């Protein structure tokens, strides 16, 4: 079943055309990686999918589980099962992590027609996921991302994803700024979410994340559209040869 279906998507940000006729389909159970040079539109794609204000769709269609995604507000998209892991997670002092985690989980559960989790059940769940992410429980009482290192912020994004259990996770350069140990932890978190009824879209600059989260498909985004698609071997080739050869044939 197709989770995400993007057809001829064009979008602009700040009055500048960024995506120009992008098409992509992600089925349940699949992991897709999108690579591409700076300015190719990778982050724009993630923001357009999540509904960030300031990113305007000018043409094309985006369907999420058969629904027109573009008619939904950002919060409706999240509750429907779309998760964006931010490249630069914002710090929100004064809002603690545990509150946000619980509010996010319950918003998702409500949309699924499920009851809110009770405090005990929630804490058990969060503790298990934090253990997986090798995060100390003290992070729960801290402000959202407040004073976190770059690596801690990325782990926190993945922790949120694991608690919310989205249908489709779009992870925007989750690997950037991570040392090799942190990369493995993050990869373990992503892999734990893989299942037959979920999809993952990894946006990355580098092949090294894909050593640990092996994608089913690798796409190269160039000049606002998918210029080439292959399997993991494409990522290895890009690592060796760079992007120029793809741009030449695109």
């Amino acid at each position, binding site marked *: 079943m197709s989770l995400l279906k993007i057809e001829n998507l064009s979008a602009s940000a700040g009055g500048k055309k960024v995506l120009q006729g992008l098409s992509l389909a992600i089925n349940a159970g699949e992991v897709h990686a999108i690579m591409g040079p700076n300015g190719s539109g990778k982050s724009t794609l993630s923001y357009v999918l*999540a*509904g*960030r*204000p300031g990113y305007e769709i000018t043409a094309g269609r985006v369907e999420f589980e058969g629904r027109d995604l573009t008619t939904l*507000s*950002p*919060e409706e*998209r*999240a*509750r429907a099962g779309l*998760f*964006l892991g*931010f490249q630069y*997670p*914002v710090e*929100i*002092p*004064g*809002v*603690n992590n*545990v*509150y*946000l985690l*619980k*509010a*996010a989980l319950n*918003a*998702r559960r409500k*949309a699924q027609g499920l009851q809110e989790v009770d*405090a005990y059940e929630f804490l058990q769940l969060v503790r298990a996921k934090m253990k997986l992410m090798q995060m100390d429980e003290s992070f*729960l*009482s801290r*402000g*959202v991302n407040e004073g976190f290192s770059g690596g801690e912020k990325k782990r926190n994004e993945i922790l*949120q994803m694991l608690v*919310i259990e989205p249908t489709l996770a779009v992870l925007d350069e989750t690997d950037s700024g991570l040392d090799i140990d942190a990369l493995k932890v993050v990869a373990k978190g992503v892999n734990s979410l893989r299942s037959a009824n979920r999809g993952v879209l990894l946006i990355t600059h580098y092949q090294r994340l894909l050593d640990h989260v092996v994608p089913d498909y690798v796409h190269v985004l160039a000049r606002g559209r998918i210029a080439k698609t292959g399997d993991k071997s494409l990522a290895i080739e890009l690592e060796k040869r760079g992007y120029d050869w793809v741009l030449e044939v695109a």
Partner: protein
Amino acid sequence: MTIALPTNRDENWRYANLRPLAKARMERAPASPDRNRKPLDRKLAGFDRWFFSDGHFVVSDQSPEARIQLLDARKAGESFAALLDSDLATAGADFTLARINAARGDEVLQIELPDDSPPLKVELVYSAATPAANGTSYPRVQIVAGRNTRLQVVEHQLTAGDVDVAVNAAFDIALRPGASLDHVRLQDCSNAAAVFDTLVAHVGEDAAYRLRTVTLGGLTSRSTAFVRLAGRGSRCEFTAASIANGNQTHDMFAEIEHRGAGSVTRELFRGIANDRGKLAFNGKMIVRETALDADSDQSLKTLLTGNGAEAAARPQLEIYTDRVRAKHGATTGKLDEQMLFYLLSRGLDRPTAQALLQWAFVEDVISQIEQPELRREIENRMLTRLHAVSSLSGLLGERA
């Protein structure tokens, strides 16, 4: 006797809404039928509690204690005048309301801790119920904390029902060398009330005055504070939060004067103006020639969330010595769009996300209130003011 009220033409009163007070009957409010009602059914652990209605003393559950007394206003005024620098206590239009308080009120609660006496905790509950057309409440408190004493005072300024009371309160504080006062003030009167107060604090050598004040109620509210850091090494933490909704006006003026060498101020203000609410914080910091190596830090931030909301955060510095560290910052802004989108992207609905960010904005003030049960009460009252009781109901339970 007639004493003219300040007007918006007076430099330090530009943002105040004085009309409701001007319309109020200036005579002291009569004791109201409400005076036997206790709006707070819980007492803070370890605190003596004094309850006043329309400025009249009603009841106290004070443990046997000679250090708190109810005095005749004139007598107390005379004894107290000697304690404060005369120029501070009598100068200018800024003290007009305090003078009216002294002239009209006839009871003063005096808290006097002899030198080196044991710590004391006092909770003061002021409830007003008499409409402004029938009179004004004049609560007055005078504190003298002797050498090396420690005092905690919690003040609640409330109304019994949605009534348009007028309150003109005065608070005089003298801290002897080495004394410390932790002072928490909560003003959560009705949105029809006119609530005015004048606070004067004289802080001696190595003494510390810590004020945490939260202003939520009143059609109009104005706090005027003068803190003199007179002694070497004296210290003031002036921390204030305010939420103005609807057509509320909250105005605060705080002058902190450094006279003692090495005196320290930390001033923090966080205010939110919703709807057509108006907020002003005027923080004046004076560093005299004698205040060598004084250290002052002001952080004033206001948040505008309503289309008709207005806010003014104004730091002022007057420095008369070179050896000083004075830092100040003031901002007025809207909700951070990045933060808002982040919360929305996690599935929180927009009103909840907005309320949560407003909450976060003032939380660094509230988190400084040490007594957990009091902090919880203030947080609950704030959530009510943010119209977020239901959407953020789990918030307090999730605190670490």
